[in-house]
């Protein structure tokens, strides 16, 4: 189990130094563009012309490929098996295998969906690889994210690793007492979750009270906006770029609807 949640890879390229909100706008723009235009090769174009170069420029190409493949390969196989063999709408049948049939439309449908998801997921991975989670939170808070939401997100990111460590310790403790994790049917496996989850959840919930008392005594939730300790640099150019990216995505959809693209 990984000790940290973030994919962040340290670097000093200009992509690393961009304001995280700009990168977030990039994720939104390419996702909107990929899903909005109804063309098989358009998402592939976005992926090859925008996201792959971004990963290469940021110097994270190796991990980018690894993460995208690791996340995407199993999904891709499932999607093509599902829609390739059992596409429900009428279409041109290529091969007939009893109740299953390979249809051109099914393959096209699976391809489009896969490429769109590829664009969305890779855009996210570029963002996560080049942005420290703390910086992302600070930048979003400066862009107007309410402090309570920012707290919940960053606290969760910190709690999960310690939670996983706690779960690992509980699992080892129960195994030391003779709990067998490897075998059995569904019901035995389900019953086995009880000695794992019980101590984990009860322990975590008893921490809540102390935490909230400590936070209230430090004026958490006061309506006054706190000043920031780390100020994420931003520029007028980046602000303009964000709007431009979103507008371009909408423009792509508009051009497609008018039949140009």
């Amino acid at each position, binding site marked *: 189990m990984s000790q940290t*949640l973030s994919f962040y890879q340290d670097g000093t390229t200009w992509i690393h130094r961009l304001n995280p909100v700009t990168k977030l706008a990039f994720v939104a723009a390419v*996702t*909107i563009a990929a*899903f*909005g235009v*109804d063309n098989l090769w358009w998402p592939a174009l976005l992926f090859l012309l925008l996201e792959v170069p971004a990963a290469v420029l940021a110097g994270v190409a190796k991990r980018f490929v690894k993460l995208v493949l690791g*996340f995407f390969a*199993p999904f891709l196989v*499932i*999607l093509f*098996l*599902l829609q390739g*063999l059992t*596409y*429900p*709408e009428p279409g041109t049948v290529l091969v007939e295998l009893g109740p*299953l049939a390979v249809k051109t*439309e099914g393959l*096209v*449908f*699976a391809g*489009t*969906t896969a490429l*769109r*998801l590829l664009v969305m997921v890779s855009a*996210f991975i570029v963002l996560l690889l080049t942005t420290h*989670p703390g910086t992302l939170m600070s930048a979003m808070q400066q862009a107007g994210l309410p402090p*309570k*939401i920012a707290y*919940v*997100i960053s*606290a*969760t*990111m910190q*709690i*999960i690793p310690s*939670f*996983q460590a706690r*779960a690992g310790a509980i699992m080892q403790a129960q195994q030391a007492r003779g709990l067998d994790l490897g075998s059995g049917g569904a019901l035995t*496996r*389900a019953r*086995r*979750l009880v000695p794992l*989850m*019980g101590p984990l*959840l*009860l322990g*975590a*919930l*008893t*921490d*809540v*009270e102390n*935490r*909230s008392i400590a*936070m*209230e005594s430090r004026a*958490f939730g*006061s*309506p006054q906006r706190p000043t920031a300790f780390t100020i994420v640099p931003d520029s007028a150019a980046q602000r303009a770029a964000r709007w431009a990216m979103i507008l371009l995505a909408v423009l792509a959809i508009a051009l497609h609807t008018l039949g140009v693209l």
Partner: protein
Amino acid sequence: MSNMPTTRRYPPWMLITAGSAVIIATYLYLVVWQPESLVGGAGVGPAALIALVGYLIGSGLIIAGAMARMPTSTVTLLPIAIAINIVAGQINNMVGLPLYLDSIGTVLVGLLAGPAAGAATGALSNVIWGISISPASLPYSTTQVVIGLLAGLFARWGWTRRVPTAVAAGVATGVVAAFVSGPISAFIFGGANASAGRSAIVAVFQTLGLDTLGASIAQGLTVDPLDKSIAFLVAVIILRALPSRFSQRFPFARENSVFAPRSASVLARARTVDVLDDRDRAPVPASIAATAPTAAGTDGAAPGTTGTTAAKDEEGGRS
């Protein structure tokens, strides 16, 4: 509570209402005016984009509205509930069950702090999961919004006081969750699912003649009711196992007596009046609640929301 912002641009219910309206409109567009784009053509047309954008905007508005006036005690509960969602989901995958188990924390907050807090927990849970481990769970935040909302409502209606009704509430929530997540699976993910087993269920329903949307909903109906009833059961068991001091700290759980039926003893009645008088000042002492004599109250007795009904129940029990 002590920390309400004094000035706000919008009343919070407005954001929650707007968010719900956006989600409902998106759903109606996707299901009732089922776009014919799934049939023929290159792909799924505008439906996928509308599903993605509509659901995410709706969830975002609900998060903002619900978080705006949340007391600190609830805010500190959220990260733990979300971590429970995510870690339980991972343990589930490790042990290899064909379920999700990723909504226990959402149900827990729904029971303790009410529908709005539950909805915010659910939405944030999948947003955080999406931006940290698996971007694919991001679009499903709307399903979790509905789960948290229903958990809070069932708690308010008193379904979580006894185990059988809590399981029934889980089954009902699962059915609704299946209908909500169907369009997400169908239009955004093309019916496929990260789990091979669940995708096989979709494939079976497609061979039986359902379209992708119908097959996705049918797949949800086979898994979600079981999964959500487990979530409700686990949440209720956990919250009963904790010292009742814990759940009594949450005004919602206290006022609706979400867990054990409060016995209509003299002590409980006196305390009921007490709680109503200064509901935000002092939590109910747990030791008294746990040891209160239960001779008079019957299990089905309605919780004393006022002193007079509690007194009536007591008389009925004695005669």
